[in-house]
């Protein structure tokens, strides 16, 4: 495995990578130290020097190995170790709240260590330029992993938020209700429904009201979740009422062809509560007597 793809890695490129391996191996200690200094200057105390040192040493070795066996083909097998290390580094930085710049600097600062001076030979300048390009590519890769990790963190947080923002309330002895508000995606509906079922158990209730006044649209997916919840509640010996079906939603549901079967639906939450209480044969006094 040379990482050489025919017609892609020219002889010249190979000479350059060989030269880079030479330079990086010969001056390992001084270049490694310069790299470390560049990075820690930017990260100033936000991460321990010992830890940075360890990270960069591993990266340095992996990079030299990659150059030696794979040339500049950073997406190839020879660079698997480099990519793994960079992936870990970006994920850690993202979790610890470092900025994209603070993350990418670990890689990009590696460019400067071979920065040419007036004494640098023409070949070595070329080697430097080629290394810069490689480090840029690796820097972008790092940022990509970073961005992906941030996204994951954000979606995990919104999941937690979702959990918190789902108020299942006990309306009355034996009656729990959940108002659904906003756009319902599958994940959110799922959370709501699980919480509703759990609250039925926790409060020993056998009537549940799902109020959809605040839902802008009910599609087949939402409907399916509603239907499943009703079935699950029944298996637990509880009955569900769906309330707050506004006219536009009702017409859409009918046009879609969704059938709620024998599920009781009510126009308002108050109607649903009355119905639930009647089911539990609570004496409602005047309110119940009138209906």
């Amino acid at each position: 495995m040379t990482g050489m793809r025919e017609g892609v890695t020219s002889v010249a490129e190979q000479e350059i990578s060989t030269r880079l391996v030479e330079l990086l191996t010969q001056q390992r200690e001084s270049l490694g130290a310069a790299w470390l200094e560049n990075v820690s200057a930017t990260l100033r105390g936000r991460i321990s020097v010992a830890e940075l040192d360890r990270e960069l040493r591993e990266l340095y070795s992996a990079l030299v190995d990659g150059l030696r066996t794979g040339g500049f083909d950073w997406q190839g097998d020879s660079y698997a170790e480099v990519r793994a290390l960079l992936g870990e580094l970006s994920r850690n930085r993202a979790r610890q709240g470092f900025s994209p710049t603070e993350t990418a600097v670990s890689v990009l600062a590696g460019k400067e260590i071979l920065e040419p001076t007036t004494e640098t030979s023409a070949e070595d300048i070329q080697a430097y330029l080629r290394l810069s390009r490689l480090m840029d590519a690796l820097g972008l890769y790092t940022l990509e992993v970073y961005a992906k990790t941030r996204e994951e963190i954000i979606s995990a947080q919104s999941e937690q938020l979702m959990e918190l923002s789902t108020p299942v309330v006990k309306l009355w002895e034996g009656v729990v209700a959940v108002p659904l508000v906003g756009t319902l995606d599958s994940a959110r509906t799922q959370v709501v429904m699980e919480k509703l079922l759990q609250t039925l158990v926790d409060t020993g209730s056998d009537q549940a009201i799902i109020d959809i006044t605040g839902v802008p649209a009910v599609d087949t997916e939402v409907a399916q979740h509603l239907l499943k919840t009703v079935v699950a509640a029944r298996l637990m010996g509880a009955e569900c009422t769906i309330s707050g079906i506004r006219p536009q939603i009702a017409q859409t549901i009918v046009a879609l062809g969704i059938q709620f079967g024998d599920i009781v639906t009510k126009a308002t939450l108050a109607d649903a509560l009355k119905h639930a209480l009647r089911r539990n044969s609570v004496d409602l006094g005047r309110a119940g007597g009138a209906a």
Partner: protein
Amino acid sequence: MSGPRPVPDADHETITIESNDDVVRARQLVRTLAQRCKLSLVDQTKLVTAASELARNTLVYGGGGVMRTGLVRRDSRVGVTAVFEDSGPGIPDLDLALTDGWTSGGGLGLGLSGARRLVDDFTLDTEVGRGTQVAVTKWAR
């Protein structure tokens, strides 16, 4: 369908549909346009619901794709159009797929047939192995 081809306004937007969040985004974009074009509340809700169904089919069965949406004009009428396109497996039996209650997955099997009922114009092009394109339009009254 009937009449001359609807003329799209220049500023149609395209969004990719590759995750559940994209489905939500597609729905919101269509709602914004429906409001701009002054569709009635019922028609807005119908169109948004149809878009939701088609976007999810694009994601689930088409393996992801794009939605193109914008205002269209025909004669003196204004409408909202949304075109969903994927390069997924295509639909081998269209009649079956448009049958109420038929699903190849675990759905209710109402999305596609229901979406057709929810809009004014509905066209579906599909080819096995090539992909599926569904275009829907709702006109302001």
